[in-house]
């Protein structure tokens, strides 16, 4: 029990610190892609920049618009933050750590429903944006909220279907089982490249990241759902996005890139394996965080009808076909037709 609490504490801290430094890294990456330097004033290499940003956020005026729905206005960022932190509970961070008094499992909870939990929590996450956007009593915020909700619902479908293929291959919903099934270099990406592409595109859309950031969309909606937000409430919205980025990178690494598995993992064992496994997972996570940023600073934003078109008319049929083919292949290989 105690070790679980400690694990929760560590994961919480790590998520927040990574989210903090993701903001710094985002600005750096943007700068590098644009032949600039990026933040370099606060501390060596600007490493204290996230702290400076945080202090600034806290010191800003905490503003609530007069005609807004006060309680919902406050609840919005809270829900967004809560849901994005919740998802980290079922991520398996590494192989068991062996101690004298038994193994420590590096996973807060291994629910029976596994990946469905993430899908469920993510689907609830849209309420943060919707409530915040509506409660602001501002038409741009409302537009942002409505865009976010329809976008999320549309992309959840394709996302769910592409996850089902992985679940079918593994025969389990638990993320730990899915990871264990990809032992060594036996990663799902080699069997399910299409599912990976679909899942990746959908998670970009679920995260409201460019090129699918239509809910924020500075150029038309002045910031969308968080137009009226300021101070740390705005900070929470932005922070939730970065925590979400971290978690979805983790989920992508686990579903398709073997989680804490790495080639040649059979030659080490015990705690070395555990440490190397955690390192392997984090390397993959950082790589995907980088890729998500890379995409953001490369691609222009979609138009909303293009977004819907892509979601409903391209991704969902593709995911369904992929599901069908996977099912057939599994049926053939397990000899159901003999």
């Amino acid at each position, binding site marked *: 029990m105690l070790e679980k609490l400690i694990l929760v504490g560590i994961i919480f801290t790590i998520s927040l610190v990574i989210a903090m430094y993701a903001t710094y890294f985002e600005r750096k990456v943007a700068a*590098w*892609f*644009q*032949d600039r330097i990026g933040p370099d004033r606060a501390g060596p290499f600007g490493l204290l920049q996230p702290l400076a940003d945080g202090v600034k956020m806290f010191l800003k005026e905490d503003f609530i618009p007069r005609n807004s729905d006060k309680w919902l206005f406050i609840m919005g960022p809270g829900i967004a933050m809560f849901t994005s932190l919740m998802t980290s509970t079922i991520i398996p961070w590494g192989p068991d750590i062996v101690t004298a008094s038994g193994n420590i499992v590096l996973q807060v909870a291994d629910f029976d429903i596994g990946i469905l939990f993430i899908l469920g929590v993510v689907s609830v996450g849209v309420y943060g944006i919707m409530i915040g956007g509506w409660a602001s009593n501002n038409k741009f915020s409302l537009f942002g909220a409505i865009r976010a909700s329809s976008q999320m619902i549309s992309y959840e479908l394709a996302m769910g279907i592409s996850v089902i293929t992985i679940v079918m291959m593994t025969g389990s919903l638990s993320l730990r089982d899915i990871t264990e099934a990809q032992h060594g270099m036996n990663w799902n990406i080699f069997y399910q490249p299409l599912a990976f592409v679909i899942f990746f595109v959908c998670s970009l859309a679920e995260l409201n990241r460019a090129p699918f950031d239509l809910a924020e969309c500075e150029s038309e909606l002045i910031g969308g759902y968080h137009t009226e937000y300021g101070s740390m409430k705005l900070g929470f919205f932005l922070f939730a996005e970065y925590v979400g980025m971290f978690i979805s990178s983790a989920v992508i690494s686990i579903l398709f890139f073997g989680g804490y598995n790495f080639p040649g993992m059979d030659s080490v064992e015990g705690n070395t394996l555990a440490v190397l496994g955690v390192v392997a997972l984090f390397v993959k996570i950082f790589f995907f965080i980088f890729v998500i940023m890379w*995409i953001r600073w*490369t691609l222009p934003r979609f138009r909303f009808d293009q977004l819907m078109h892509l979601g409903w008319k391209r991704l969902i049929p593709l995911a369904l076909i992929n599901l069908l083919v996977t099912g057939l292949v599994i049926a053939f290989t397990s000899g159901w037709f003999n």
Partner: protein
Amino acid sequence: MQSLSNRSKVVSDKPMTFMEKLYLPAILGGMWITFTHLFRKHNTLKYPEQTKAFAPVYRGMHVLKRDEQGRENCTACGLCAVACPAEAITMVANEREQGEEHLYREEKYAEIYEINMLRCIFCGLCEEACPKEAIFLTDRLVPTEYERADFIYGKDKLVESMDYRIDITDRQSTGKRTEK
């Protein structure tokens, strides 16, 4: 029409091929382009530490020059104020008294000389108009202030001090009216 630069692209609206409709090659191509930029040299100027030299034609804050003996050049003729299209310059003239020859070069001088930096458009016409080589635009910047009144620069800010002379030798219009 024939292209002169050979850089123009012919626009066409023929339907996209399947590969183009996939968008993936284009997306990967774009991502490759941004990726190569990761390794390019940045062209940031770290401002407060490094500064960029202004062009010699740059027109910034004015200076009222003194001659080699430290006397103010300006004779309060008012030509600069007349030339100014923005009505930024005002002055009050006064006669040089006995014993003030070391302060003012001409017999008449400007007792008050004010430029409203909020009105000024930095066109440089005052510099062109001045017959006495008294006023020049320099490469210094007008700093920001909180009050409007602070932007009205009097002689205290405009006239150069002898300890800290403002070098205008490579300004564009210097030496144009040197005596022949």
